[in-house]
């Protein structure tokens, strides 16, 4: 049975889109296949690894496990939306570069989105807050220490900035 398509309206990285999709489409498929935003990665496809993490209405979610229909009327931010329009990287992205918080880079978009959401939510996260938050993103090549250091660096910079 080929179900009829449905129309949804969604804002992605500030741009409004109106798309006609099959109800079974996931948010991940919407971003990658319909909108061409391939920065969000597809990996485990069973809600485990976090490579597909994006931000929906300020919350980090795994795009492989959210139906696109459920983001109708919502705001989505992907890794493509982190840098400013003129290409200036976010503070967290800069910190990732500074601390080499990746090796192959496949898990990085997901990690960036999780940590961006966490840093929005918590003004001054403790190391425990950061570590707990990191649990949703798996890295299979380099590990987590540089990643942790990068986030701590952003928190440190913020504290100094507010002095």
């Amino acid at each position, binding site marked *: *049975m080929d179900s009829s398509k449905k129309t949804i309206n969604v804002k992605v990285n500030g741009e409004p889109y109106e798309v006609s999709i099959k109800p*079974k489409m996931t948010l991940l498929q919407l971003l990658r296949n319909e909108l061409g935003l391939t920065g969000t990665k597809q990996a485990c496809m*069973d809600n485990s690894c976090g490579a597909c*993490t994006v931000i929906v209405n300020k*919350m980090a979610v795994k795009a492989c496990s959210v139906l696109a229909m459920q983001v109708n009327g919502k705001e989505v931010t992907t890794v493509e939306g982190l840098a400013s329009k003129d290409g200036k990287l976010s503070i967290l992205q800069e910190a990732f570069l500074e601390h080499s918080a990746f090796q192959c880079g496949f898990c990085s978009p997901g990690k960036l989105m999780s940590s961006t959401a966490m840093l929005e939510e918590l003004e001054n996260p403790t190391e425990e807050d950061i570590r707990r938050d990191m649990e949703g993103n798996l890295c299979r090549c380099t590990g987590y220490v540089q990643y942790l250091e990068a986030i701590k660096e952003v928190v440190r910079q913020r504290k100094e900035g507010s002095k």
Partner: protein
Amino acid sequence: MKDFEYFSASSLQEACSLISQYKDVGKVLAGGQSLITLLRQKLISPTCLIDIKGLKELDFIEFDKKSGLRIGALTTHRAIEKSPLIQEKYNVLSEMEKSVASVQTRNWGTIGGNLCSADPIGDPAPSLIALGAKIKLVSAKGERAVALEEFFTDYFTTIIEPDEILAEIQLPPPAANTAVEYMKFATIEAGIKIVSTSVAVTVEAGSDVCKDAKIVMSAVAPIPLITKKAAEMLKGKKLTDDLIEEAAKMAASETDPTTDVHASAEYRKEIVKVLVKRAIKKAFEKAKKA
């Protein structure tokens, strides 16, 4: 994933009418944190999904001194974890929620969806059962309240009728001289639990005597398991280390775990002994101060 028809309900009433119409071929979608995977793996293939995630009327946390706590079924795990009210009055729930899956899953997944998916490794059910939870099931025909411990019947199976929707979870007010403790054993915090337990202990005021106890476990049986014999051993007795150890052994003997990639059945039983012993001790100490 197979195609399906999709309806987004705009009220609970509409959702009930849709599910009564499509009960033979439809499924209710909340956060979908279990359902989407099941659909993708083609373990289930409904021809219609009724999406209730947007129903604000089922997204609430309310407390009344006399009647206790009500949690709307569409409240996310994250909202329960972060609720100052729950942290103050039912802290065990907030602590348990911290280790439910990952932040991303907790942000989108709902407590009602979690219970209805009836995965025996789920953590919320044992804690809620230890706290004496009831659930409200509604349909176009009416509503009924059921003790949560009577909800689960087998792996991924509950008594919910095909035309019913889980609307809310109800907890009695926190009881005097009572504490509930949650403990888990997992290789990583956000990973699959090898075993977890929630233990409620009520003491006689100002003494070491246990008035009431309940021990509930996940991942050791097809449903959240209440180890009744172990709890009975504690009731009316002074809680000594020896007695607690014996009760924990009894709890292990009541379990029926399976072997999987995470742990063998034998190993799980050993872990139960340690975890239950620790949880009883901790709940006992807290209950004396509660």
